[in-house]
Structures are given as C-alpha cells and as structure tokens.
C-alpha cells in the first residue's frame, strides 16, 4: 500500500486527510461516524475524544514497541487503548456532561473503533515516535473533517441549526429524518459516492494524461 522509500514527514500527516482518510477510504470507524453526527457539537467532541485516544495510544505504542513480545502485542494495544478511552470518558463526563450524555455509549465504543487498533498494528508499532505522532494527528484530522462535514449537513438540514444557532430562521420546517438513523446512513452513503466519483475522475484524468505521454502529477 504505502511506498517503501521513506516519505517526507509531512505526508504522514496529510495522507490521513484524503488519500487514506480513515472513514471515506479505509471505511473504518463508521459506527461513531453515523451515530454521533446528528449535531455539530457532538461531532466536535467525539473527534476530540478520538484525537486524544489515537495520539495517546500511538505515542505509547511507538515508544514501547521494542519491549513488547510479539505474542501479546494485540492484547497490550487493546489494554493501552482501553485505558485512554476510560480516561477520555471520565474527562468528558466531568467537563461536558450534556454532550457526554448525548454521546452515551459511543465514547466507550472508541475502544473497538477499528481506526485506533488499525493504526497501532499497521503503523505505530513499526515506526518511530515522531512519525507515529504525525500519522495519528493526520488520521484524527481526517476523521474530524469527515465527522464535521456529516455533522454540519445533518444538523443544518435536520434541525435548521448550526451549533444550536438557527440558520434558516423560525419558518424553516426541519427535515427531521436527517437527524434520525436513516439520515445518517443516507448522508454517509452519498458522501462516499461523491468521494468515489471524484477520485475515479481524478485517476482517469491522470491515466489519460500519462498515456498521452505528458509529464503530469497524479491529480488530487
């Protein structure tokens, strides 16, 4: 998947935003992406929690990767991730109790969010701390971007508000289904279709350009 020659550090960060976006490309972490994006506030807090857990776990796993025997590495990773999730859960409950209640079980479910364990196994366990940090930040940023996009679409259409502030005025009849489960599925489905169409178009153009002999960078 990734090229074998060492890529410049900045790509470790940017790949999480688009090329290897955890939700749109790798199709991981869909449970929270659908469940908590019914409002922008929820999406923001969830993204912050995932950032905390992913960065914390990646740093720790990358630091201790040499002393962990291969047989117990998955168990160790899960233990580390579960620790960070427990901490995040308690911190959220203490400082943002209203949003914490709306997020409910999904903060705890970050433990089984495939993004986190996936990054430990695929990256943090075999890369230096600096790069692991960038990777974690990039993935979290990509996740946050997707969550915010979905959250905005669903809240604006479904409640007529953005972060609680009315966008269309009092006469707007909210498209309630957008903040209900079907709306979540629909929004992510359409987003994936658009994303896939866009990248295919970019790849097709790049193929056409290179087969024509022109010296061009891969689009998008």
């Amino acid at each position, binding site marked *: 998947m990734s090229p074998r020659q060492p890529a410049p550090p900045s790509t470790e960060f940017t790949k999480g935003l688009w090329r290897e976006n955890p939700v749109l490309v790798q199709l991981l972490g869909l449970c929270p992406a659908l469940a908590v994006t019914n409002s922008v506030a929820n999406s923001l807090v969830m993204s912050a929690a995932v950032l905390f857990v992913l960065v914390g776990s990646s740093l720790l796993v990358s630091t201790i990767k040499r002393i962990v025997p*291969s047989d117990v590495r998955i168990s160790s990773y899960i233990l580390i991730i579960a620790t960070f999730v427990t901490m995040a859960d308690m911190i959220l409950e203490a400082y943002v109790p209203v949003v914490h209640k709306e997020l409910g079980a999904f903060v705890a479910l970050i433990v089984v969010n495939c993004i986190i364990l996936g990054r430990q196994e695929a990256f943090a366990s075999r890369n230096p701390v600096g790069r692991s940090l960038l990777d974690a930040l990039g993935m979290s940023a990509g996740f946050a971007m997707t969550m915010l996009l979905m959250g905005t679409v669903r809240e604006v259409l479904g409640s007529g508000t953005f972060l609680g502030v009315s966008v269309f005025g009092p006469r707007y009849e909210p498209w309630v289904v957008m903040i209900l489960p079907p709306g979540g599925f629909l929004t992510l489905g359409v987003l994936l279709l658009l994303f896939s169409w866009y990248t295919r178009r970019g790849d097709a153009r790049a193929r056409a350009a290179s087969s024509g002999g022109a010296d061009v960078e891969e689009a998008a």
Partner: protein
Amino acid sequence: MTHGTPSAPPARPSASSQRLIATLGGFGALAGLLIVSVFVATSPRIRANKAAALAAAVQEVLAAPDRYDTLYVTGTTLSPTLPAGADADTAEAVYLGWRGGAPAGYAILAAGPGFQDTIRLLFGYDPASSQLLGMRVLDSKETPGLGDKIFKDAGFVEQFARVRAPLVPVRDGQGDGLPNELVMITGATISSRAVVQAINTTLERIGPIIAAHVPREPQP
C-alpha cells in the same frame, strides 16, 4: 480487527512466558495508575455535576423550594438514612422540599417505555391534595419534532403543575374538564400517554408510602 494489514510486523524471537506475563502485568499496572489518577481527579466534579442537575430538576418540579431533603425508600417507609448495604447512587429516593419551614411537596422519579425507548422524568407531588406540582423530563429518546414535544411543548408541561392524581389522558377537545384530566399532544399521543403511565404507576406504588410519612425537619 485490522483491515488490510500490508505486511507482517518485524520478526521477534518468541519470548518466555515470564516475559509475557511481566509485560502484560507492567502494562496493567500502568493502566491502573493512569485510570485511578484520572478517576480521582474527575470524580468530585462528576458528582457535583450530577448533584447540580438533580437540584435544578427538583427546583423546577417543586416550584422553587428553599431546600430539599433526600429520603430513601426502605420497604414501606421513607428514611433520611441509607438502608444498610445499599449504594447511594442506586438506592431509590424521593426528595422532600421545604419552603418557609413547611413541607413543599415530594419530587419523585418515574420511568416507563415510550415510543422509542425508556422515558425518565421527575415530577412534584403533594400527598395532602393528591395534586401534581410540576414535571420535568430527564431522559428521552422520543422522535425529534413529534415525541420530544413532551418536554418542548410548554403548554403540555405546565398542565403538570395543576393536574390531580391519578392522571387520565384525554385527547384535545374531548374530556369533561375534570381536575385529573391531562390533554395529550396531538400527533404524540403515545409519548404523552407514556408519561402519564409512568407517573400513575409510580404513584400507585409510592403514593401510600408517602402519604404515611410524617415530614420532620431534620435537626441541624
């Protein structure tokens, strides 16, 4: 589980079981340390949040009492002390409000299945006149725009400050104008009925216990 791991992790010699246990044990200890420190740091604030939320709810349903006492339901009596072996967080309790030296009604928790999921609410009750003093929905997953009117519709909620127990739900326009009739929300009759049912069921059980209780101002 990881999705598409590109290659196997760098080969490490299989470690002795002592090393495995030591590693996991070490991580367990670290995990425990982190979690307990965050727990100790955040639990006072979490408890304060919960107490504040409850206090706000009691203030609302008992029409701003000066203060309130927590009375635990122990079998068939109410007692200011926790029954032996019970946990303060899970023991059933009612809250007796005081205003100007006289009892100002009991705030009672009720819960019951609504349209979507369980509805939890707090209501104020005066045993002498069998009259309700107020109602506040604490937890609801009812349909936004329809069922959630049980807490968003001010006209519905303020009925609970005047209606007499046992409540009889009636549709708008029907009913005989009796003091224990409660007009349901048009389009959300199931959620409204769920609220009524929860209150009636709870009063059936707790009403006699409360009626038999003699409020006593605790000695300072």
